[in-house]
Every structure is written in structure tokens, then in C-alpha cells.
């Protein structure tokens, strides 16, 4: 089974919180094995979706299937093959890494002592915590904690690995290595990575979705999405004050300050006018275009492309 990992299918999942916030609205995704990026701004509903996949939350409606496991109704079965790295988590400050990892190994069903020792040792080495395995977790740095979290998530060789905003607290080098690790893992399982950092997805993910305000804005392969925007992104370097008059006429997808002036990216099938020059799109443009609604309400890339023709 490990050689043929099953995909994850999410159909029409909706969630509204008691305070009225519609966190997810008819979310449907097909997540094939491999590294899958879920991109979205803060508060887009990423964590809600991740927690729902991690059996920690119930959707109001919808259906989620991992291979032959019904995620919503067969929680126990899913948990047996789930690795979850939450966005925020704490650790017992007075426990050591080896001790706590061993504890989680038991919780993950690794009850044979010798097997457990082998697995925890491998994981501690893999996450480069082996030398500090006897140190109290209270003294760990943010990166070390994150790595420990990964070690916990990897226990039991999960078929579904859910990592929620894992790179937020990592320095650039650690971030790269972490993503590499995820990439390695994605050979044999579904790895769902949620992030608000476009670069995380750009570099490694074979598939991605962009989510905003509880809705999927785009579901695509990153390269295809970039390709689809070719010739539609234009830029202008304007004086700061010029932004307001621009706004109504053009679909501005992003505006960045650059050396005291404003660099504006605009989405337009044809040249938006004088002063704009075409630019080669990157994934960031895809992301901002998606948030700006340029891919249509369904977020279906093919549909948008068809309409544009």
C-alpha cells in the first residue's frame, strides 16, 4: 500500500463557526500523493481545513476520503495513518525530547520497545535532535521545537501528513531543509502543506490550491498556473500619490513600495494602457491574481483560460 499511496479527496466541505464566521464554503479539492501546497492569507480558512483533516474538527457538511478511509466518520482509522504538525503547539518543558517522543510513539501505536527505540532514534537523527535528546524541551529554540514536532508527526509512517504553517518560525536555511524533507516524504504519502508564503509552494509543490475567505480560488499545478498568466500581468512604477486614480480603471493585484515609488502589478488580458509594461508572471502573481478573483469564482484554471480566449 505504501508504494501506491492513495489520494485525498475533499468534497463540498463547509464550516460555519458559532460566531457566524463562514470558515469554509463548499471546499472541494483532489489531493494526489505528493507535496500539495495550500496557499492563502491569514484567516483564509487554512487551519480550519487542516484541523478538519486532522480529525480535530467536524465540518458542517461535506465528505473527505483518504483512499478507503472516510475521514469524518472513521476518525480512528485515519488517526492510525495520520501525521499532524499543528500551527501552534506546546511541549512539556520539563520532559526531554527522547522521553516525550517515546511517549508519542506509544500513542501512535508503536508498542514494541525495540521497534520504538529504533524509530525514535531514526527520527531524532533525521531531525538532527539526537545530540540534544536528553535536553529538557523547555530549553529548545523555535526551530528545534518545530523539528521535534516533525518527528512526532512522522511517527508511525503516516500516509497523510498535514503540516500547518510550519515554516513561519524558521530561519531561511532551516526552512529550505525542512521543505526538502517534506519533499522526500511526499514520495510515499500525501503531504498537505498549508502556508501563506508563496515561495514555499513555488519551489516544491507539485500541486497547489489557493484559498481565501473559506473558498478555493484556484486549484492548479504551480507551473501551469504561471504559464496561464503569461501576457496578462503588467507593471507600472508610479509615484506614490498615483495609486488612487489607477484603482478604478485597472485590476491591481499587488502594489509594492520600491525605492520611494510604487510598483503596481495589474492583471489584464490586453495592455492596460501607456505607462504599463508586460512582465513575466511568477507564482506570486498567480497568488495575488487568485485573491483578486482573476481566476473566476470557481477557481478552475481551465475555465478561466477558456474565457480569456
Amino acid at each position, binding site marked *: 500500500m505504501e508504494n501506491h499511496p492513495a489520494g485525498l479527496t475533499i468534497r463540498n466541505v463547509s464550516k460555519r463557526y458559532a460566531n457566524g464566521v463562514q470558515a469554509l464554503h463548499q471546499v472541494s479539492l483532489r489531493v494526489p500523493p505528493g507535496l500539495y501546497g495550500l496557499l492563502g492569507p491569514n484567516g483564509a480558512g487554512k487551519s480550519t481545513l487542516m484541523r478538519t483533516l486532522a480529525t480535530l474538527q467536524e465540518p458542517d457538511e461535506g465528505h473527505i476520503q483518504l483512499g478507503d478511509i472516510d475521514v469524518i466518520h472513521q476518525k480512528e482509522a485515519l488517526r492510525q495513518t495520520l501525521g499532524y504538525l499543528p500551527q501552534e503547539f506546546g511541549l512539556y518543558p520539563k520532559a526531554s525530547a527522547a522521553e516525550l517522543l517515546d511517549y508519542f510513539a*506509544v500513542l501512535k501505536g508503536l508498542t514494541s520497545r525495540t521497534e520504538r527505540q529504533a524509530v525514535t532514534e531514526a527520527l531524532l537523527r533525521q531531525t538532527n535532535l539526537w545530540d540534544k535528546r536528553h535536553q529538557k524541551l523547555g530549553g529548545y529554540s523555535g526551530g528545534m521545537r518545530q523539528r521535534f*514536532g516533525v518527528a512526532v508527526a512522522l511517527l508511525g509512517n503516516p500516509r497523510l501528513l498535514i503540516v500547518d504553517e510550519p515554516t513561519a518560525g524558521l530561519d531561511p536555511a532551516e526552512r529550505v*531543509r525542512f521543505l526538502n524533507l517534506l519533499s522526500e516524504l511526499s514520495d510515499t504519502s500525501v503531504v498537505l502543506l498549508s502556508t501563506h508564503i508563496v515561495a514555499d509552494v513555488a519551489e516544491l509543490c507539485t500541486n497547489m490550491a489557493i484559498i481565501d475567505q473559506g473558498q478555493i480560488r484556484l486549484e492548479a499545478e504551480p507551473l501551469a498556473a504561471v504559464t496561464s498568466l503569461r501576457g496578462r500581468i503588467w507593471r507600472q512604477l508610479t509615484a506614490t500619490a498615483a495609486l488612487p486614480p489607477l484603482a478604478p480603471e485597472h485590476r491591481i493585484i499587488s502594489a509594492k513600495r520600491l525605492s520611494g515609488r510604487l510598483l503596481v502589478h495589474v492583471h489584464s488580458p490586453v495592455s492596460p494602457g501607456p505607462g504599463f509594461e508586460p512582465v513575466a508572471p511568477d507564482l506570486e502573481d498567480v497568488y495575488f491574481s487568485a485573491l483578486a478573483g482573476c481566476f473566476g469564482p470557481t477557481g478552475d484554471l481551465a475555465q478561466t483560460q477558456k474565457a480569456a480566449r
Partner: protein
Amino acid sequence: MKLRRIFALEFGYQLRQVTTGLYFVVLLALAFLIVVGNYLPDARDGYFLLNAPIVLAAVTAICSVKWLLIGASVAGEAGTRDVQTRMHLLTYPAPVSKAQYLGGRFLAAFALSALVLLAIPAGLLLAVYGTGVEAELLGPFRGAAYLTTFGFIALPNAFFASALQFSVVTLSRRALGSYLAGAALFAVAYLIWPVLPQTGNWGRLADPMSFGLVLDHVSTDWSPVEKNTRLLSLDGPFLANRLLWLGFSLALLAFTYWRFQFNIPESARKVQPAAQLDAPGLSRPGWSPEAVGARPTGRGTYGRTTHWRQLRRLTWTAFRQLATSRAGLPLLTLLALLVGLTIRGNLKGRGVPLLPRTDFVLDYLTAPLTEPASFWVLLALLTVFYAGELVWREREAGLGDLVHAAPVPEWVLLLSRFLALALLLVGWLALLLTAGLVAQASLGGARAEIGLYVPVLFGLQLVDCLLFALLALSVHVLVNQKFAGHLVALLVYGALTFAPTLGLEHKLLIYGASPGWTYTEMAGFGPTLTPWLWFKAYWAAWALLLAGVAGLFWVRSRETGLGARLRLARQRLTGAVRWVAAGAATGVVLLGGFIFYNTNVLNPYVSGAAAAAQRASYEQRYHRYRNAPQPLLTGVRLGVEIYPRQRTVVIRGTYQLKNPGRAPIDSVHLATGAGVATSAVHLDQPFRELLADEALGHRIYALRRPLQPGDSLRLRFAVTYHARGFTNGGADALVLDNGTSFRNMEWLPAIGYQPYRELDEAGARKAHGLPARPATPSLYDEAARRYAPFAEQIRFEAVVGTDADQQVVAPGTLRRTWLNAGRHYFHYATDAPIRNEYAIFSARYAVQEGRWRNPAGGPAVAVQVFYPPGLTLNPARMVRSAQASLDYYSRQFGPYPHRQLRFVAHPGYGFGHHAAPIDITVEEGFFLLNPEADARGFDLVTAVVAHEVAHQWWGNQLKQAYVEGAGLITESLAWYSALGMVEDKYGPEHLERLLRFLREENETPRTRAALPLLQANDWYQHYRKGPLALYALSQYMGRDRVNGALRNLLAHHRPGTVPHPTSLDLYRELQTATPDSLRPLLHDLFAANMFWDLATETATARQGQRGRWQVTLTLRARKLVVDSLGAETQLPLQDWVEVGVFGPAAAGQEFGKLLYRQKHLLKSGPQTIVVTVPGPPARAALDPRHLLVDWQSEDNYQAVQLIK
């Protein structure tokens, strides 16, 4: 400005929280319930007005102590919210001074607490004016009463508690500290209160809540007038208490201010060097490159085995974390140590050390968790606390998501918590066991029975703990909010504890409740274990159901809304859960049904209210026969078969009745016993049964031919007792495997209407529409002098059969014993009439025998002590005391009419006696008293035996009328007689120790308001003030004169004559014997509630000639009479008072040689007396022997200043 803003933010933030409103409501309800449930009945019984200032104060004190547990989160939150929410990262660097930051928060916490405590006066007002209380129970509305109680009790308490809680949490940065501080204050309040009488003033100062101090005003030390009118004022120990703790609180706050630092808690700890090396950077690899790709392949296995292993690991981890926390085993060890230290002090009977036998140690060490008077309350609170920790620990550490996404079923998560808590409780019991063993070893004299410790602690007591632990866990799981969970759990605990007061009496309805078990060496567990087991099994089934519910609602999701939890619960309701629930429900139904069959079908279930209603209707229906002429019982013959193992007794009896009056009698009223079947009632003359009221136990038989004056009648009956199952109160302990005893009063029919069965409490009488009457008839109610319960003089004869290895004791001479068909028979018959009160005993006894021969002639008296085999410490001493008593009393008061005097052991934890004619019941604990180990050098055993033997005269020959002052001519005379006996037979030193023992009670603060001794109506008057007054009189006019008066009293009121004697008859005899000069003293001691205030201000001495010394004393004297409401009137003093002078005391002695003791006629006010003594004086005293009633006795003494 900043301070005000900080205050406002904190105050407003907490004010908006639901919990704050909840605290207010709970406290209001508590105040309301305490008034309605506790003080309203007392007010109806006439103890005080319902809105008396002291009632308001008491309710405020109780509620403010309970609030410590309820409202601890207020100070806890104020002190730690920033750290908990990590907002301190923003607030600490802000330009705010420590004073502003801490001050604003503390003041907000205090203000919020004060606001919440306003619920108390609100609840009081609602209870007093919102429930339609009768107008006559209310005094005028006084705002000052509410203001003083709130201002002097609630507000300072809130300040002290807030200061302590705030300091603890601010310095520890843990909100929990607030609860621990609150619980500690709570514990201190409840632990100090009961020992206040022994501690004196330091106890009043030591309790920051001044809890016992206020409550003692209600119970002992305020007079009725004071209770109703006196406002709580800030003076004396109360003021000292408030000031002391105000100072302490301020000092604590200052300390907190000094210690507090605006730094981040984590960084305050020492950072380990390894962590610093791990600075993020490109130079160090974050991930091991060579390891990437070498992915571990271990996969989990799932199934039952895995679940058990997970359970084991989770349990152990949770237990270890809990046990090693400061509030875990360290705290429990400390508690066990404290309990261990208190064992010595508690294993005492009236101050006399007990042999530390295991069953008595265990009686102290165990109690139901809902027993409010024991240290187990603390364990209940700790259990609630532990449960909260166990449920919340992972989530608070931020591990919740990691754990909850792991493949561990809910039942493993829940059960592991329960087992961890169970392990901790087992640990606690092991500590307690150690404490018991160490105490036994250090006290010495008794064998430690591990075989008893283990089943009692780890069987019986543990079950009680586990049931409650599961409840606490379930509450925390279901409530799913830590502080609200604590609050709900506490409320549930309170409801369980006070369920009977709230009207819930049936133990099938109170979670975890069961009848208690008892174990003494003599009787073993007896029949108490069976009902205990059934009830606990029933509650265990409930607990299983509860656990099932908790499992279904166990929160592992991020969503905690009710709807989401219900949905999840439905999902989790799988086959296995259903089966377990069905099994538990079946258990509940079957066990509950069986218990109900026992408590309500096999045995009648009578609630407290129903019992009162029965007594009321007994009076309503049959009181009219009270004065109906009835035949008099003159003889009793019984044939008794006791089957201890079957717990069955069959009695066939014959009563000899006689018409003692002048009118013919046409009907016989029979009051039948409760809990037995009375049958085969037959009169030897033609008769007809007119009425048989089984429920109220009254029957009427009409005689065809009226019984003429002087004629006799024979009544035959059968009474059967057969214990069937058990009742809501457990199994009754009358017939036991070893230690059976029953009395005629409970089981056998009595003739005529029985006034003692009436309701006495004024409130209850009113509620049932009965006419108002004093609880005890007035001394001046002449009609009442004709009644005393069971006062008939009878000839008694009985043949009693029991098991072959047991011995029967009954009144009279044992004529014959024989064995028949494997049973042991005893034939007893009295040689002289006895009063109609007797018990029949059957058990395996050891016997200590002695004889006493009356020097004046007559047959010898056999003195026998039937004691539990092995307890040989006291029987010989008891025989000696009884012989000496018989000798002294028969010489002083008149002959002892019987040929035996017996003491018979009765199983139980008590030390008491009951002196029926000939046979005196002695509770098992009395045989464990070890007077030789008494630090006071006082022999209580000898003294008590003397007291009980004296009852053969006072109470059994002289049968007092059932009116006020009755205790004066039974208990007071018995102690007075014992004093004389001890003086004569054991010497003046023993007498002095006994007198000192009796006077110990004078040091307990109590109100002076009382009726005169002639109308004595409480324990202190009967057992202490009365004998001391008689002794004082004997020292003024001579013991022989007093004893002569007593002899006359007895001679003028022969047994069986009516009217029965009262204290007025005693007074008359004493008057006759008292010389005119001492008549005023007699009056002051008995006919008035008189107090003397005597003091020696200075004492100087000058050496005279030939070794003589002249001592000059300046004295102060006054006396005052206090009425029963507390009004004091000063009277001119013109009394003879002793003056004593003592020589220097030898080392280790309190007093030196007595150099002088004479009576001087004193007057009111300051005065000087000069006496000459034959040696160098050291101390002088006014009334050195404390003969007069003066509770401030220390100032009687003064050291003598020698003038060169």
C-alpha cells in the same frame, strides 16, 4: 491615571465574564439556603430572631469562607492573565511602574471580590424578607447590622484573601496558586474552629477569616439578648484579628511588590548552554542531511493489546506528573504527617489517652468524603483539583492537538486519567497507613493490625475515594472549562454533603452515599458491611454509566460547542459503548431495585419529616388518654430466645398489672415497641381489642369487667425481632454476632400514653399544629411532677437462651444456667424491685469479679465487670472503685438494695455509660482508656465508675420528675457523690485532680446567661456547675450536713412513689440543713444564676516576731446575677469568702505549703485584709479553692511581695 486605567481594564474585563455573575448567583443562593435551611428552623425553635445581627454575621462568615473556594479565580486571573495569554510580552516593556501595574490589578481583584461578596447581604435580605417568614421571628430592620457584618467580616476577609491569593499567583505566575491559597485559608478556618475552646486567644488570632470566632458567638459565648440585639463591634480578639491580618496582608503586598520583576518568566530561568549554541544560522545544519531519505519504517499496530499498552503508559505518565508536582505527593505527605501528629490528640476520651488499638485509629483515619467534620473534606477538594489538572494538563501545555490526533481511543484517554488519580489516592492511603502505624508505635500499648488496616483503607475507604474521583473527573470533562469545572464540582460536592439538610435523605438518590460501616474488635463489622457493599455496588454501576457519558463527551476536537459535542457523542455511541452502558444500567436497576426492596419494602422507610409527622400524629390522636387511669406495672417475667447469628430475638412476656388508684379501670392502653412485631396480646380477664394502630404503636384493650382498685391483671404478649435486610440507615446494631443488647424501652410494650414520644422542638410542634409548650416542662408545673418515663418499680425475672458460647447478662441474681440443645440458658431474677428499665445482653465476655460486704450487715454484693476479652487494663480498677463507692454511698445515703452491681461492655467507639438498675452499660472505648498515661495524673476511670455507681441512688432509687432541673438531682448528685467517695477512699490529692478536671470546662468561653441551677437545662449545668455548687456548699457548711440532706431527700421520696421529686425537693432538704448564716449562699448557688468577681490586687508581707509574717492583701470583690437572657444586675456583696496564703513552692510544684486559710466576710468593692501566718509567704489568694462561681479565676491569686 495609569493606575486607574489598569484598574478599569481589569475590573471591566472580569465584570463582563460570565463566571463573575455566576459567582454572585452561587454565593447569593448559598446565603439564602443557609438562612432558610439552617437558621430558620433554629429561629422557629426560639433560639434567636431570624434577622438578629449575629445570624447575619454567622451567615456572612460561613459564606465568605465558602467563597474562598468559589471565587479564587478573580485574584488568580488578575495576577496571571498577562502571563497566561502571553500578553506580558507587550505589557511588561510598557512604561508602567510596578506600583501602578500591580496596584491596579490588585485593587481590581479586591473590588471585584467585594462586589461578588455583596451577594451575601443580597441573599440575606432575600431570605429574610422574600420568603414570607412569620413576623414574630423578625426584629426591626437595622441597616447597621448589615453594614457592620459586611464591613467587619466580608470586606476584610476579601482583602486578606485577595492579598494572599494575588501575591501567590503574581510571584508563582500560576493561576492555580490562587486556589491553593483559598483552600488553605478554608482549611485553616475549618480546622481551627473546633479546637477554639482549647486554644484560647491564639486560635482566635490565627484564623484570618475569624470564622470560628464569629460562629462561637451563636453557639456558646453570647447570651440570648446579645444574640438578638448586639451588633458585631470591632473590639477585643476580633479587632486584634482584623488588625493582625490587615498588617500581614499589607506586608505581603509589599513583599510582592519588592519581589516582582517585569521580566519574562522563561528567561528568568537559567538557560542551558546547549540551547544557546543552537542559534539559527546557515553554518549549522538544521536537519541532518545524511538522514533525509532514510525514513524510519516502523508502523503502529492497533488493537486491544496496543490500547492496554497505551493505557499503561498514559496512566503512568499522568500519575508521575501529578504525583511529582508540589500539590501531589509532597502535599499529601505533609497532610499525612499533620494527620499523624493529630492522632495522639484525638485518641482521647475526655482528655484521657486511649490505648491506640487499630480499630480506634482507623475510626479516626477514615470517614466518608462527604463528612464535613473530618479532614477528608480536604481530600475531596484535592481530588477535584487533581481531576482538573488531569483533564487539562495536556491542553494547557499545548500538546492537545498532537495527542488528540493520535490513534488513541477516548476510553483510554479517560480511563488513564482515572487510574492516575486512583494511583495517587492509593498513595495517599499508603501514607495514611504509615501515619497510623507510626502513631501506634510511638504511643505504644496496642498491636498494629495490618490485616485490618489494609482492607479498611484500601478496600472500604478507597472505594469511597474512587467513586468521588470519577465524579470529579466526569464533571471536569463535561463542563470543559477549568475554573467553571472546579466550581461545578464544588457545588456538586456541597450538594452531596448537605443533601439531607436539603431534604434528600434516601441514599439511593445521593451519589456515592451508603450507610456507614463500623468495626470494633468486639463486634467486628457486624451487619454494617452488607448494606455498605450493596449501596457501593449500586453507585459503582452509576459511576460506570457516568464514565460512559464522560467518554462520549470527552473533548478532543477543537470545537467545544454543545451541538458539536452532541454530534460527536452520537458518533462515538458504538456497539461496545452501548453494551457497557446497557450493562451498567442493568446494574443500576437490579442493585437499586434490591436496595429499594430492602429499605422500603422489607423495612419501612421513614424520612426525618415523616418521623416527625408520626410523632405529631401520635400526640394528636392519643394525647387525650394521657390522664386516663391505667394499671401499674408491678412485675415482669420474660422468656427470651436470642439467635445472634440469625439476628433474631423472640420474647414471650407476662406483665403483672395492678390498679393503684381509687377508680375502676375499664381499658388498657399499650404502647408497642418500634421495629418489632408485637403479637399474642392476651389479658387474663375477658377483654376486647378496641384499636390496634401499628403505625403509631398504640393499642387499646377494653376490659369487659373494669379492674377494681387494688385488683390485679396479667398481660401476656409475644415480641419478635427479626432483622430483615437493611434500611436506608444501614442495619440496626441491636442484635449482633457478638455484643447483642436491647432494652425494654425500645422493644417491649409499655402501659399507657407515652409523653416522651411527643415532639419537643417548638418549630416542629408549630409546623404540625401542636399546641406550644416548653421542650422540657417547667419546674413549677405541678402536674408534670407526676410523670417520669419508666419509673414503675417491678419485680423482674427472665429465662434467656443464646448461643452456647455466649453469656447473658440481665438484672438480678443468676439463679441457674444450663445447656440445652446446643444453646446456653440463663435464669435471672431480682431480689428487690428495680425500676422498669433494663437491658438484656449477650456476648462472649471476660469477667472480673469482686465482692463488697456491707459493714452494717446484710448480704454481700457481687461486683462484676463483663469486659471484652483481652482488655484487662481497667476492670480491676473498676471493681475497686465500685467497691469503694458502694461502701461510701451506702454509709452516706442509704443502703444499696441489690445483691449485684455489674458493668457490661457494649460494642462501639464511644466511652459512655448508661446506668440502669444493677446493670451499667459501658461502651467498648471505656476499656481502652489508659488513665496511667494521663499527663494530669488523673484517674478518670475510677471517677466515672464512682459517678455511675452513684446513679444507683440518684436516678434509680430517687427517680426524678421529667421537668427542668432534673439533671441536678441525677447527674449533679452523682458527681457530687463521686467527689466525696474519691476524697474518702483515694485521698485529697485525687479529689483535687477531679475538681480541677470538673473546672476545666469553666475555661471554655460561654455566655453567662442561664437559668438558675434549680432549673438547670444543659450539660454544663448538670455535669459541672451543679456538682461544683454542691461541693462548695459542703465546704461551707460541712459535708455531713449536705449528705444528711441528701439522705433525707432519698428517704422522703421512696422508689415508685408519686409525685416524683424535683430540684425543689432537693433545695428544701438543703435549706433545712443550712444554718441561717449560709442561707444567702445557698440561694446564690442554686436559686440564682450568680457570678462572683473576686481578685487579689496586691499582696505584701512584713516579717513579724518569732518567725511570723504579717500579710496585707488588697482585694476587689463584687457579685452579679445574670438572667437567662443575659441581663446582668450587680448586687451588694456580703459574703464569707476564703482567704488563703501559701509558702514558697518546691521545684516542680505549683503551690507551697498552706500557711493560712480562713473565711472572711467581704463586702463589695476594694478592701484590705491583714492576716498573720507562721512562715514566709509566697502566694496569696482570694477563694483559693474556687468554691464560688468565678470564671476569671487566675486573678484570684497574687504573688506576695516581701517588704524588708
